[in-house]
């Protein structure tokens, strides 16, 4: 294909601006990843390749703390993502298949608003709310808060997927003697699955990575990975934090990739 007049590659500084942006965005991450394999105690001087900080994460003095935090993060993320996905699926069906009802656009705004509200505001509000109803702060207050802020993240891919599924599929199922619930479970649900998986994984990652809200609503004595890392860093950055951060980054990249391909494979079976 011949390059068109407006081909982006023909803009003079395109390459340099792109490289600059990529460097600013990913430079720090790459440095953290490289230095996680540093054999030295210093976080700035290279002392040769080693896996000692990874070993330190799993078996070092802070290992027990990280393990408990990781376990909390993981179990909270699974519960929050599962609940948020179920709620988001129901919301998407109501919004897209429910016909037009009063306050539909208002509802949509309410569902997506949490994406735009500054997280610190949500965090403070959630904290005040929990105090007001005297909800004991701890593991379950984190789960609750995570479910709530994960809903819009799960909602977006699910509703996008549902929007692409024509209503005639369910009508065809009902026409072929399927009850409403059979039509839902045997036709609509499998067709929505890529969106649901995508939404679940996105919610899972958002929950796993959350710091601000978690830090506000968690009680004393309970940590998730991000709050545990923050706690460690406050006493000075040790290279083991770099190793832990790299591990978390890998987990995130893995889930985001799976989520992307789930959405993509769904798009392929559609047509």
């Amino acid at each position: 294909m011949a390059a068109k007049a407006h081909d982006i590659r023909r803009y003079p500084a395109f390459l340099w601006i792109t490289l600059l942006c990529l460097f600013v965005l990913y430079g720090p991450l790459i440095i953290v990843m490289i230095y996680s394999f540093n054999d030295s105690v210093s976080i700035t001087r290279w002392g040769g390749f080693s896996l000692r900080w990874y070993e330190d994460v799993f078996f070092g003095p802070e290992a027990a703390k990280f393990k408990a935090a990781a376990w909390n993060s993981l179990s909270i993320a699974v519960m929050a993502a599962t609940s948020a996905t179920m709620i988001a699926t129901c919301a998407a069906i109501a919004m897209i298949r429910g016909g037009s009802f009063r306050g539909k656009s208002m509802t949509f705004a309410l569902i997506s608003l949490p994406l735009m509200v500054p997280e610190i505001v949500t965090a403070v509000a959630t904290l005040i709310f929990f105090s007001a109803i005297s909800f004991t702060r701890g593991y379950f207050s984190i789960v609750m808060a995570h479910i709530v802020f994960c809903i819009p993240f799960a909602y977006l891919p699910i509703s996008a997927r549902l929007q692409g599924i024509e209503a005639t599929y369910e009508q065809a199922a009902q026409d072929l003697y399927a009850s409403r619930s059979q039509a839902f479970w045997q036709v609509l649900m499998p067709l929505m699955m890529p969106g649901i998986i995508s939404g679940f994984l996105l919610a899972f990652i958002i929950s796993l990575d959350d710091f601000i809200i978690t830090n506000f609503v968690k009680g004393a004595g309970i940590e998730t990975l991000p709050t545990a890392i923050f706690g460690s860093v406050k006493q000075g950055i040790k290279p083991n934090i770099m190793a832990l951060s790299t591990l978390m980054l890998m987990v995130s990249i893995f889930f985001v990739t799976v989520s992307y391909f789930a959405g993509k494979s769904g798009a392929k079976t559609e047509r």
Partner: protein
Amino acid sequence: MPETDVNVSAARSDSPDAAPQSRAAVAIKAVRKVFGLPPAQVTALSSVSFDIADNEFFTLLGPSGCGKTTLLRLIAGFEQPTDGEILLFGEHLEGLPPNKRPVNTVFQQYALFPHMSIRDNIGFGLKMLGVDKSEIAQRTKRMLELIQMESFGDRRPSQLSGGQQQRVALARALAPSPKVLLLDEPLSALDLKLRQAMRVELKQLQQETGITFVFVTHDQEEALTMSDRIAVMSAGELQQVGSAKDIYEAPRNRFVADFIGETNFLDVTVEEVSGSQALCRFGPARLTCSTAGPTTAGSAGHVSIRPERLSLTRPSNDDDLVGTLERLIYLGTDTQHLVRLDDGTEITVRAQNAHDSSLDIAVGEKAALKIDTGAARLLVD
């Protein structure tokens, strides 16, 4: 006589002693459908009544927005009528959801389930009915044979061509042996060649299975070639029900005459009425017309004459229909003559290019229009 068909079924549904109606596969009785809420209401159907006989290939024909698809969706159960009722072999359908109605639909875009194999698609209806597995396997196999796609059972819908998907959609809808098969413009997504082949196949399938087909289309050619009877609809109203021949040769009103095939309209004054014949005056000319409905002497009306039932001669009598030959258009099998009448009306005459059809009238000369006996039809308006 086709024009009475509408009246007969309407009268039947109105009379209280219309007991034995189980004959009709589908009876549509004064069905009205209004969409939306009071300020922004749209009437999709305004009191439509007719019967569809058992084992009939029945077509609902009309331009888009005429209410034909709404009617189909009412029979399928996707919509509920605002007024009136629909009977299936004498049984009331009111309140029954689509899955409780023994009718199946072939959708316009097929709506094959993309996540299931062809075999599972075809077997879906039977599975939902609770038919046991070996029976489903057998019937599915038979359906695949019927549509000549035995080797495609394990494929996914996305791996099939448009024509194959169409056949699978048909098989899927026929597999549960519905009492009535509804087809919503199923051929519109296919290219011309395939569409023509499918017309023949569909008609054959209907005759083989003996199932009543209700076919929705906006394509008059499709309707004429396949249907036992056609209901022409426009603007939510039934215009005429009858065989292809009835509808083409004896249209009831201006809409039907204009929508089906080509025609010429003349604005005439009725002079005399006797039975189903009327003598009409157009300028100095007089035409004998068959009437499509009650009319009175002295009233104004429209006459429809098909172009192929007109021929040109040299003017001889004073009461001939005379005009100027303006143009000849050669179309291969026939030639189109455009004649401008003295009052400005343009008339199309179609003559077959058979052996000695050479016309001795040149462009610009006067010509008289000769109308075949029974070809002029006075329409109801």
